[in-house]
């Protein structure tokens, strides 16, 4: 990990520790939790897009899988929550492998379409066979570990942001390793990458699985935090929302996932009074970013910052 990132992580840690001490407003903390959940899902997609050059339109599927599997295992089968979370992640990554192997062998848009199909199938399954069908189910046990049950918003804030910091650390280490360079090489030229001995299919599969792990973990945490699930939150639109998070934040920088998540999570809170134009605004923002701000916020800021230093 580079020095800048290490400092960044350190300050993020400090911020996370002290934020709930300073801001005690439950509403703001709740928004903070949702920012964290969205950022975790986006982080995986960001590595997949920015580093492996692949796109997934099915992150909602993994997110939903994580949420439902963990919720059902802990509620209906009485498994301890950490174990149900673990199994849900395992399930998601297994499906990710099955999905990735055939579609990553093909070039270009195939993963996009395959993941889109996968996400929608999960959505249909949750609607048809999920407990409670389209209206969902509740009474999901809250997160508990070593006999201690998390109840307050502050505790969940810490739990989720602890996972963010862990995932951030892992991601940053990965990106700054030789493997990270190989991933970026694949993005620039697959042809040259293979002739350097980089097994591009295998690396892409691993990154895709990593993205499914982040998404399913986020889903599981979400389930045990809100203790109520319905399929509507796991539709294609959520996948696209996460795509927006990554695009706005900047896919070539993992920090973009957090920055983007802040914007995309807060936006609907601001737009609360304009329910009928929210999709239009999302569309405008995404189109605008793709046309005029392709790099995304974080890389853009870094660029401006570096220019100022050079002066």
């Amino acid at each position, binding site marked *: 990990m580079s020095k800048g990132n290490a400092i960044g992580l350190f300050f993020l840690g400090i911020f996370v520790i002290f934020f709930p001490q300073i801001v005690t407003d439950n509403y703001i903390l709740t928004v903070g939790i949702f920012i964290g959940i969205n950022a975790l899902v986006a982080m995986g997609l960001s590595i997949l897009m920015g580093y492996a050059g692949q796109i997934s339109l099915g992150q909602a599927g993994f997110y939903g899988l994580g949420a439902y599997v963990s919720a059902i295992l802990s509620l209906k089968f009485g498994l301890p929550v950490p174990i149900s979370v673990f199994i849900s992640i395992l399930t998601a990554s297994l499906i990710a492998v099955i999905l990735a192997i055939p579609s990553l062998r093909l070039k270009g848009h195939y993963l996009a379409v395959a993941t889109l199909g996968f996400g929608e199938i999960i959505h249909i399954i949750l609607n048809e066979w999920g407990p409670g069908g389209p209206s969902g189910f509740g009474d999901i046990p809250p997160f508990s570990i070593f006999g201690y049950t998390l109840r307050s918003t502050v505790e969940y804030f810490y739990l989720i942001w602890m996972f963010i910091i862990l995932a951030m650390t892992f991601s940053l280490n990965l990106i700054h390793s030789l493997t990270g360079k190989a991933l970026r090489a694949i993005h620039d030229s697959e042809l040259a990458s*293979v002739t350097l001995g980089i097994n591009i299919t295998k690396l892409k599969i691993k990154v895709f699985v990593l993205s499914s792990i982040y998404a399913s973990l986020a889903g599981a945490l979400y389930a045990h935090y809100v203790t109520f699930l319905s399929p509507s939150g796991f539709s294609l639109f959520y996948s696209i929302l996460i795509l927006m998070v990554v695009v706005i934040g900047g896919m070539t920088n993992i920090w973009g996932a957090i920055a983007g998540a802040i914007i995309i999570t807060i936006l609907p809170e601001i737009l609360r009074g304009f329910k009928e134009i929210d999709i239009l605004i999302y569309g405008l923002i995404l189109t605008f970013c793709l046309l005029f701000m392709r790099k995304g916020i974080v890389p853009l800021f870094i660029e401006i910052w570096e220019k100022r230093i050079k002066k």
Partner: protein
Amino acid sequence: MILEINNVSKSFGGIKALKNINFSVKEGEIHALIGPNGAGKTTLLNIISGIEKMDSGDIRFKNISIKGIPPHKRAALGIARTFQNLEIFGNLKVFENILTGLYLKNQKGFLKSGITLKGIDKDLIIQSFSILEYVNLLNKKDELAKNLPVGEQRLLELGRALATDPHLILLDEPAAGLNMRETKNLSQLIQKIRDEKAITILLVEHDMELVMGISDMITVLNFGEVIAEGEPLMIQKNPSVISAYLGED
């Protein structure tokens, strides 16, 4: 013989690009593959490095058949290459391009990379610098590769290939787009690689001065067939080679 091409054929939609090609490359030599445009030279390099499949025939590298082996595994066996239409990693810095070459023999694995805090070993960075020094690019190490002029991008590709620690390097028109001085430096560099590092080189090149100056052996292709083979002086006098080249003009 480090590389043996046995009866290799390849056609694209009815057009025979290569017809029963046979020749061998001796270890430690600079072996040039020449011929007019469309003779099938690049296709043959693609087949050797595994990014294109041959229709029939066999290729043996260090006495092992590499038929059907995917390209990344061929790189692991010791075959590296450069590209005629430059395939550098433009958004990576120059020294990072070299690091991608070092990945092959020095990577730690996905999971371990994620839990190792200190990033890329200092040794590897130093190693990448010394490779850059070898190809005369050390002063450009922190620039984005896409900002280099063509000549230096070609050197960078060569350095990246060297970083994989190969036994054989396939050079696809390394002098294309280079001026006279750059070409001269390149020819010295290629000889240095052969002499100091004992790496075998299979060279596809149009610059005859370069080819005649450094090659130990030359194979001439025309319309997908080997029409001559021999040392530079012999090739220069070979009538069928002369007519093949004159016929082109």
